[in-house]
């Protein structure tokens, strides 16, 4: 495998058993990722989060994941043991979730959670782990790392919690980061601060980033490339800079239907969903 490709996804499928039969949430998704920022955009039910979870190995046990190829740095993720998978998860592949209120452990201080992540994957002394956790909190621009280290998640704001989560995920120096709606639970102004931090760290460390979001405009301003998903399939892959020239009516519709300051349109254009998009 070439040194440039970090992740290869070919014909990924995620199938859930339900009372009414099998439901395919992801239906043959293919893309590859280098050390770049890739956005996955789609609306609820498009399979974007399940794609991210399948890569991370967090698909619920009752669901089935299959792919012609799902490889991270040449490692076939579908054939390795759960133990090997665990060694990758949180270490070389990390994930930021949407809402720090639910994804941080409420009964553990922020510092201890970061130290735990680090000591799970690396043999380091307690003192060194603490040092590195503090440095990481500093890196996500938390002003008083020593104070925040000893706080519980409920004692910090949403923006601060999300920074702590980024710190926790980056402390092991992952090569691939999957961010699933990392800023959707935050206020607009805080959102930009968090994105700035994420952007800087990803660039400095040369990581690959998969940014999953429903917000096409935000993703296109943040990522190099965008994968647009609809009903479990990729309908379009496009460079973020060329988004204006998007071909697929769904992509164009998504771009168009949001109100924009200074562009008055009454009524707003709505998506005319065609059954063949999902075919």
């Amino acid at each position, binding site marked *: 495998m070439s040194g440039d490709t970090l992740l290869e996804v070919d014909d990924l499928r995620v199938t859930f058993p339900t009372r009414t039969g099998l439901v395919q949430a992801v239906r043959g998704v293919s893309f590859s990722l280098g050390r770049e920022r890739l956005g996955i955009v789609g*609306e*609820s039910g498009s399979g974007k989060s399940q794609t991210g979870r399948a890569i991370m190995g967090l698909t619920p046990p009752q669901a089935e994941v299959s792919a012609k190829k799902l490889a991270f740095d040449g490692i076939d993720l579908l054939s390795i043991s759960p133990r090997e998978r665990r060694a990758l998860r949180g270490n070389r592949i990390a994930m930021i979730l949407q809402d720090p209120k639910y994804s941080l452990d409420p009964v553990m201080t922020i510092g201890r959670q970061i130290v735990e992540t680090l000591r799970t994957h690396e043999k380091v002394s307690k003192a060194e782990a603490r040092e590195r956790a503090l440095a990481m909190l500093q890196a996500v621009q938390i002003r008083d790392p020593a104070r925040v280290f000893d706080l519980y998640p409920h004692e910090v704001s*949403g923006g601060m919690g999300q920074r702590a989560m980024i710190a926790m995920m980056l402390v092991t120096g992952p090569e691939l980061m999957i961010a699933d709606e990392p800023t959707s639970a935050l*206020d*607009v*102004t*805080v*959102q*930009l601060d968090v*994105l*700035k931090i994420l*952007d800087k760290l990803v660039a400095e460390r040369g990581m690959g980033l998969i940014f999953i979001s*429903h*917000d*096409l*405009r*935000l993703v296109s*301003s*943040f990522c190099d490339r965008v994968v647009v998903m609809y009903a479990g399939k990729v309908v379009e892959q496009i460079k973020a800079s060329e988004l204006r020239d998007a071909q697929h009516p769904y992509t164009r*519709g*998504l771009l168009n*239907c*949001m*109100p*924009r*300051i*200074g562009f*008055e349109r*009454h*009524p*707003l*254009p*709505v*998506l005319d969903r065609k059954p063949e998009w999902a075919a």
Partner: protein
Amino acid sequence: MTAFITVEGLEVVFDRFRALKGVSLEVREGESYGLVGESGSGKSTLLRAITGLAPVSAGTITVNGKTLGKTRDKAFYREVQMVFQDPYGSLHPRQTVDRLLQEPLAIHGIADGEKRIERALDEVGLGKGFRFRYAHQLSGGQRQRVAIARALILEPSILLLDEPTSALDASVQAEVLNLLEEVRRRRKLTFLMVSHDLAIITHMCERLMVMQNGEAVETLTASQLIGQRVSEDYTRNLLRASEGFVRA
């Protein structure tokens, strides 16, 4: 034009926390007025105080010439209805759409329920087929349409909208915003709408108030905001943030 809704020096205190610190505003009849701010700015609390869902400790609220007391009478709720943010939380999970829509009619003793329910569903773009379904059988956008139908069924003159589209996908949001504009035009409704999204507020409202920490930052017309003629730094920051991420 005279003021239709007047709020003066409104204070809301939860325990010792002052959620609203003396906020005043005036909404004219038939106007669409927006409240913008971040979480904790008090914008939703202001709406809830008007409907009587938040403890008012000082200040007055006047709606259509009547100053509101501690409790609201039935006549008030025929005039003022609210649509909440989360259509997954605001509809009873074990009631059919029909039952949900009958509730306000029963409370107010309105007889021609059959016709009204049909008309309300029709008005929000849901056919008769939806009448006997449960909320969990509907998508987020359809649920919000049911919530709007429930608000409209009493033929109110004021709709209070608390982030009516923030739980919806972008394409569904456009449909619901269009629907709201259409019913407002048809029924000459007055809107008081809360959102954290400046673009939605400028799209929907003629005037707006920017709020922060329970206080009004400034009051603007939509065209002032579009022309960036704002005087407060906080509003400028919000405007910049709404343009998306810009790499330094």
